[in-house]
């Protein structure tokens, strides 16, 4: 671009572009406020102000020393505020800082291009943290502003119309959308080339450990945990939908933990049970387990089924993860238990003992010496005694909390009941464990999928029954059957319900206008996840082979090229053959038609000729009576130049012109 540089003005940044770049900076950095340390956002803001002052001539560009100092202190700041080495957050922090500093020091067009490319990069990094529909729409707007700045760079310095640049950038990007869709659908999706630093854990959901209060906190959140599309309609029975995720089988220091994966293969006895196929779109959890109904019969190849029926992936789930599976609700598993397993699932460490519970359970077991009867006895105590189901239970002591819950406070949340139940089992030597997951979900009537939200988080018990294997027991069902049968909102007192997030269907109910709108939003987001965010290699293959049959690289490439060329051709049509805007005045339209026809027949209007003179010339040359020509030209001029005369003469005039062109046609042949 030597020629450009020589042009003098070519190397400066037009004002228009500068203003747009400042707006673009704010637009692309703003969403990062969620992930980055606040000081980086402040630095960006200060840099923006600094550049504005430089532009106004009230301050100076940073000197070389200040620039070096800024870069060094910025890097040190990033290192200090990043907790886990060179993480993705640290990388993005550096990128955003570089972007802000470059904005301050940029002088030439080349610098401006660097800033613009960095801005696109900052947009891309935001998608590593968040790929929701609204974020995508927002970033599309941000990309428009960045592109508008690039347009401004190529406009004359005298042009100060930023909105015109924004409009141009908008149409440019909108016209690029069809081609984008083609590329998105056809561009081959390959597996990752190498391992990359991953975003830190800011996902919410079930954790590796649970203490009784944890799940109650989750119920404050209405964010989506996952969505499920069943192959043939959603099962209507709410209480079948126990989404199993993590198995808490280690009691340690009063807390339940997910133990190590036991060796061996899962032992499942399918029996004659029906299989239920479905697809799950799991939102990022930062954990490596998947959720599914018991008992998994078929599973996505990217996950491994452990003997305790956890479905584990190799890496934590950091973006929407889409998987297919099938479950056999009636199947048995773990019918024969190995000795180490039995020991592991009955172990209670000494420091976690609850002596009153131990004594109570031993006595109860003596009168009910069978696992199932013992469990039933425990549940009937919950039913008969004044136990409460509440999200806001009274505080419990850290050690021996099961005793104080079971005998004193008697009010708690699902995890309280489940942990007390499992503890009681283990204390009499029955293998039992706590299972964390979600219960139920909300059927979206618009698209028929099931939405499971964080407030559906639930904990229940699994007890090993001799000859039958592991059986699910949900002690919460004993205290609050509505929770198990209808969902959280039904089980809560009106006071508790107030603490739920306002904008959920659990709070609103389904019938209200707002409730329907919430379903609609959910539907849109679900489709977004299904077809955009969740569009990976597998989905692509299925989609393309449905349309193209057998997928050979040549076929896919050819179709992509053909469709891409079609998109570009359509855009070209739009750009180059835009029709001349039709006049709304019937007289003008009639006259234009006449001129077009006359010129086809060899009568071109001379540059200086008035419409009247032209019509007169044409009329005379085809031998129309002079007084008729006179009448026509008079009424034409009247109609064109006298606004009040128009409505009266328009119709008559159009007919006159039409007659004249008919005469002309005959004369020409």
């Amino acid at each position, binding site marked *: 671009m030597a020629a450009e540089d020589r042009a003098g003005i070519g190397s400066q940044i037009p004002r228009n572009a500068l203003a747009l770049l400042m707006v673009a900076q704010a637009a692309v950095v703003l969403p990062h406020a969620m992930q980055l340390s606040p000081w980086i956002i402040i630095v960006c803001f200060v840099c923006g102000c600094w550049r504005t002052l430089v532009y106004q001539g009230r301050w100076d560009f940073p000197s070389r020393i200040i620039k070096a100092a800024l870069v060094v202190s910025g890097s040190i700041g990033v290192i200090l505020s990043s907790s886990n080495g060179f993480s993705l957050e640290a990388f993005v922090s550096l990128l955003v800082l570089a972007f802000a500093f470059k904005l301050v020091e940029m002088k030439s067009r080349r610098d401006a291009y660097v800033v613009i*490319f960095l801005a696109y990069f900052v947009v891309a990094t935001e*998608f590593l943290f968040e790929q929701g529909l609204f974020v995508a729409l927002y970033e599309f707007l941000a990309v428009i502003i960045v592109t508008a700045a690039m347009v401004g760079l*190529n406009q004359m310095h005298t042009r100060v119309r930023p909105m015109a640049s924004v409009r141009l950038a908008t149409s440019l990007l909108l016209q690029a959308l*069809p081609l984008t869709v083609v590329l998105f659908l056809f561009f081959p999706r390959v597996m990752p080339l190498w391992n990359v630093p991953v975003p830190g854990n800011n996902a919410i959901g079930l954790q590796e450990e649970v203490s009784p209060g944890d799940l109650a906190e989750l119920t404050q959140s209405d964010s989506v945990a996952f969505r499920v599309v069943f192959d043939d309609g959603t099962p209507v029975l709410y209480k079948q939908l126990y989404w199993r995720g993590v198995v808490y089988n280690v009691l340690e220091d009063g807390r339940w933990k997910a133990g190590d994966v036991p060796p061996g293969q899962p032992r499942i006895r399918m029996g004659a049970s029906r299989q239920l196929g479905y697809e799950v779109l799991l939102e990022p959890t930062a954990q490596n387990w998947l959720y599914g109904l018991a008992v998994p019969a078929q599973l996505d190849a990217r996950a491994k089924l452990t003997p305790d029926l956890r479905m584990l992936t190799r890496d934590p789930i950091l973006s929407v993860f889409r998987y297919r599976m099938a479950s056999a609700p009636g199947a048995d598993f773990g019918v024969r238990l190995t000795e180490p397993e039995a020991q592991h699932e009955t172990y209670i460490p000494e420091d976690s003992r609850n002596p009153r519970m131990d004594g109570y359970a031993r006595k109860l077991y003596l009168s009910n010496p069978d696992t199932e009867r013992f469990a039933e006895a425990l549940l009937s105590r919950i039913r008969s005694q004044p136990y409460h189901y509440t999200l806001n239970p009274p505080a419990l002591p850290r050690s021996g909390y099961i005793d104080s819950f079971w005998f004193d406070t008697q009010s708690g949340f699902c995890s309280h009941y489940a942990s007390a139940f499992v503890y009681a089992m283990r204390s009499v030597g029955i293998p039992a464990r706590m299972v964390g997951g979600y219960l139920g979900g909300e059927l979206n009537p618009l698209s028929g999928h099931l939405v499971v939200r964080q407030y559906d988080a639930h904990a229940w018990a699994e007890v090993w029954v001799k000859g039958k294997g592991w059986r699910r027991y949900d002690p919460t069902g004993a205290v609050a059957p509505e929770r198990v049968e209808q969902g959280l909102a039904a089980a809560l007192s009106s006071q508790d319900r107030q603490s739920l997030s306002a904008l959920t269907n659990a709070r609103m109910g389904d019938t209200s206008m707002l409730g329907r709108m919430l379903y609609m939003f959910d539907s849109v987001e679900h489709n977004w996840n299904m077809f955009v965010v969740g569009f990976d290699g597998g989905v692509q293959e299925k989609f393309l082979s449905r349309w193209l049959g057998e997928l050979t690289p040549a076929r896919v490439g050819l179709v992509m090229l053909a469709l891409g060329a079609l998109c570009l051709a359509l855009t070209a049509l739009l750009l180059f053959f835009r029709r001349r805007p039709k006049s709304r005045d019937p007289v003008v339209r009639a006259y234009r038609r006449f001129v077009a026809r006359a010129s086809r027949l060899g009568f071109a209007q001379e540059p200086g000729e008035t419409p009247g003179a032209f019509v007169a010339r044409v009329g005379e040359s085809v031998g129309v009576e002079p007084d008729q020509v006179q009448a026509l030209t008079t009424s034409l001029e009247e109609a064109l130049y006298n606004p009040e005369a128009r409505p009266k003469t328009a119709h008559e005039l159009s007919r006159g012109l039409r007659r004249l062109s008919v005469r002309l046609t005959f004369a020409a042949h």
Partner: protein
Amino acid sequence: MSEGVLNERFEQFLERRIPPSSSITLSQSNVFIFPTKTGFVFGFFIALLIIGAINYQASLVFGLAFLLGAMLMVTILYTFRNLSGLRLELAESRPGFVGEDVQFSVRVVRPSGRGREGVQLGWPGSIRQWAELADKEADVVRLYVRGSHRGWLDPGRLLIETYYPLGLLRAWTWVDLNARALVYPKPIFENLPRFTSGRRDEGVLVDPLGSDDFTDIKAYTRGDPIKHVIWRSYARSDGRDLQVKRFTSYQEPRLWLRFDDVQGDTEARLQRLTGMALRATREDREFGLELPAMNVRLQPGIGEAHLETVLRELALYGR
């Protein structure tokens, strides 16, 4: 293949593709388009985004990369459209002197409707000028070329280019508008022969009290120059008879600028003659030109038009 041969080939290609004409309308047959260096960097940047998207398996990063790539493709149409339909005409070319800038005016007319931005014009090796076509339908762009030697100046093909709208692509064309301008010799004004050297028989009296030719003797009147007093006759007449000699200056009314009358080699002589012609015109003198070697004899004349004829002969001497 040497660069010279390549350039020649390219010239021939252009000659066939865009033949010289005084008015050229740009269309897909004569506009070229190619990414700029920034455009290639942008392409590399998109490739980087795609690699990132693959490694993070992030659909929306793919989406962004594809959007930017598609935008680059659509920009091809936009950049081309920015030049397409423009009509270029040579409006005027003004002669100049060696060492000065010679001005060519090029009229750029766009079709009615959408405005054009960022259209730049320039001769090879000169500064680009922007045509203001955003709000106006036509603009006259003045382009300057340094006149390096006398004679016809052919500025070569005119470059019309645009980087609009994104600066990632450059659409350009080279048109030959048959533009040429005369470059006059660089005038020399120093040590020119004096014009006041005509003879009495064909000159006109320009100064009755001149100093060149003796005319007659007359009685002294007050105001006559002292140095013209004939002191000898004054002494002889014992101081009664104070007489003065009268001289007059005559100038040839029709000045002849003759190649043979001036000093130096051919170029120097032409430069001097140019200087003389300019001075004569400034002083409103009638003058003619004689270039014997070229069989040129321009009858004396006066005024700007005559000056132009004379300068033209001087510029084209021997060419």
